[in-house]
């Protein structure tokens, strides 16, 4: 587990776990948690590549920064939406919010 491989493996597994969370959780908020994990995994990747390969350029950092901003914004909006859904539907069970079916 030297250097970059290690980081990438960790981020990959974290991404997989986050994905599992998104796909299986009943509760919308838990789903959001899964999404947060996936974003963190992505940030780890960026920084790992930055540290090992492109440490003189600051582009990866900008990416990570933007990533985190997006995560924050997304969490805020997501939770607001969830609360709204909660008020309308009375529950935030993902499988019950299926008004948009064919």
């Amino acid at each position, binding site marked *: 587990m030297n250097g970059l491989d290690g980081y990438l493996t960790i981020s990959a597994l974290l991404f997989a776990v986050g*994905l599992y969370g998104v796909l299986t959780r009943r509760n919308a908020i838990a789903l959001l948690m899964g999404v947060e994990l996936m974003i963190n995994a992505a940030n780890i990747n960026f920084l790992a590549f930055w540290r090992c390969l492109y440490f003189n350029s600051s582009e990866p950092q900008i990416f990570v920064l933007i990533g985190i901003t997006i995560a924050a914004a997304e969490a805020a909006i997501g939770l607001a939406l969830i609360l709204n859904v909660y008020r309308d539907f009375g529950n935030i069970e993902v499988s019950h919010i299926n*008004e*948009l*079916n*064919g």
Partner: protein
Amino acid sequence: MTGFIHWLAWIPLLPLCAAIITGVMALARKSERAAPFITIAATLISLFISAAVLARFLGGTTQNHLEVSFHWLQAGRFSINLGVDLTHLAALMAVLVGLVSSLVQIYSIGYMHGDGGYGRYFAYLALFTASMLGLVVANNLFQLYVCWELVGICSYLLIGFWFHKKSAADAAKKAFVVTRFGDVGFMLGVLILSSFTGSFSYNQVEQTLSKVAIGAIQPPFFSPATFLAVAALLLFAGAVGKSAQFPLHIWLPDAMEGPTPVSALIHAATMVAAGVYMVARLYPIFLLSSFALGVIAWIGAITAFIAATIAIVQTDIKKVLAYSTVSQLGYMMIGLGVGGYVAGVFHLATHAMFKALLFLAAGSVIHAMGTNDLREMGGLHRKMPITSLTCLAGILALAGFPGFAGFWSKDEVLGVALSNGQTLIFVIGVLSAGITAFYSLRLWLMAFSGRPRSASAEHAHEAPAVMTIPLIILAIGALFGGLMNFPHPFIGSLLNPAEHEQINLVAMGLSTAVGLTGLAWAWLLYAKPEMAQDPVERMPVSLYRTFANLWGVDAFFTNGVARWALNIGRMVAWFDRHVVDGAVNGAAWMCGASGRTLRRFTNGQAQFYAAVMIVAILLAVWLVLGAMQPPNLTAAAPTRWAVTTTLGGRAR
């Protein structure tokens, strides 16, 4: 003399104009009474012109034919000019047709008196005469085919004249469809000959074919011999259909549904002879292929024999005569088939005479009695002496009683058959001659001798003058018809002056002997006043049954071919509606069905969508990997690696 040429065109055109005029009158239902006079006048004038031409030929002028033709259609290599070409044969036939047609029309005035479609009847008759003359005088294959079909449709219209009778309408349809079978072959023949030789006119076709015969030109696809045989036999196919030869003879007996004068004109003398005339007119083509002649002879022999046997057991007077016509046509075909060109044509001429006579006589009997059934007739001799005597003349001519017309022509045919070495055909011919003698005398005796067997036979009365005069004229023709070719061979000299057949005494002796035995046997069986049961039925049952159901040919066609064709029709209609249409509707249904299945995928579950997205990404990555990496990195590698690592081993 040249002025005379322009008159030739009027031979077919005059009756045509008469037909059009009377047709319009019939449609407009006005002055139908005048219709017969117009048509008879037209026919008589055209008869006069053709007789004048015939007289000139008999007068021994060097000219062997008079021809006039005009350009009708031009489309690239396809050029047609219609015309009139009166060779000796054509002139003879034109006179014959004109004579018989006018006599029949005169006769019909009496016969059709008071019938609903009076004008329409004469219009059809005139149209028939016009197209028959057009056929006779034609100088090219195209006009021959055109008139051939017109004659067919006239026979359809005339057989189905009383169209409100279902049997008449069926008979008309049957007649037309069966002759149409023959016409398919005829058209193919015309197509082959005209496209190969590049023109329709007879002499051009004959010249080119003679070159083919001597191998100067190589026909496509076939070898010369087969090409000539195929072309000749295809033309003959048309004759088989039109002249009711075996196996397409089934329509002629049913054609008796039409008025009797129609049967006399069309189904005895003229139209059915068209096939024989066509073979005679195009004889140089047939001469080039001995195989074709052989086939013609054999078909003629079979037809003669079968039709004769069937005629024995018929009880309807017109059916007997119909089968006798089929049999006599067989004789003419034998004549032409064995190379006796003059004999065939001579028999055609005499047959036209006495068969028309017999039909008209039968017509006057039916007119008087109101029924065709021989079993209800009997003892009419005293009631209708003229009809009886003229009918006797016709019967003896048909039977080939020495001295009468039939005797000379039939013997000449059999003589040529014997002298040209066709002994088997000769034997069949003689045998049929005997049978012909038997059934002809049987007819006369059942109708005229003995005691009347029914009320209507009791008070039958003689036909009016307008009907008996044509009978008498034709009876004279039947009596002295033989003079046409014996002792001085007028027809022989006319048709091909070169060879003079000498009478083959052996053939004449044999056929006369057999004919007389036939007559005697009929006399023995039928010349009794009382006749409880038709003596013919005492014949061995199996024989009687085969003759009675017309040797199964008719059955084969009606419930065999006809039903089979109709079934195919229904099957194809079903196939079209369910399979071809089904495919179209199926396609429409499939769109709907695929729409419905895909709809189930959008089920509103966000997580399901996420999963589908991930799978799609995986597939895309795998494809890209597959495409980018060298082939060894197939899907197997990652899975193998995954399995080994998860089980603890190291992949590398």
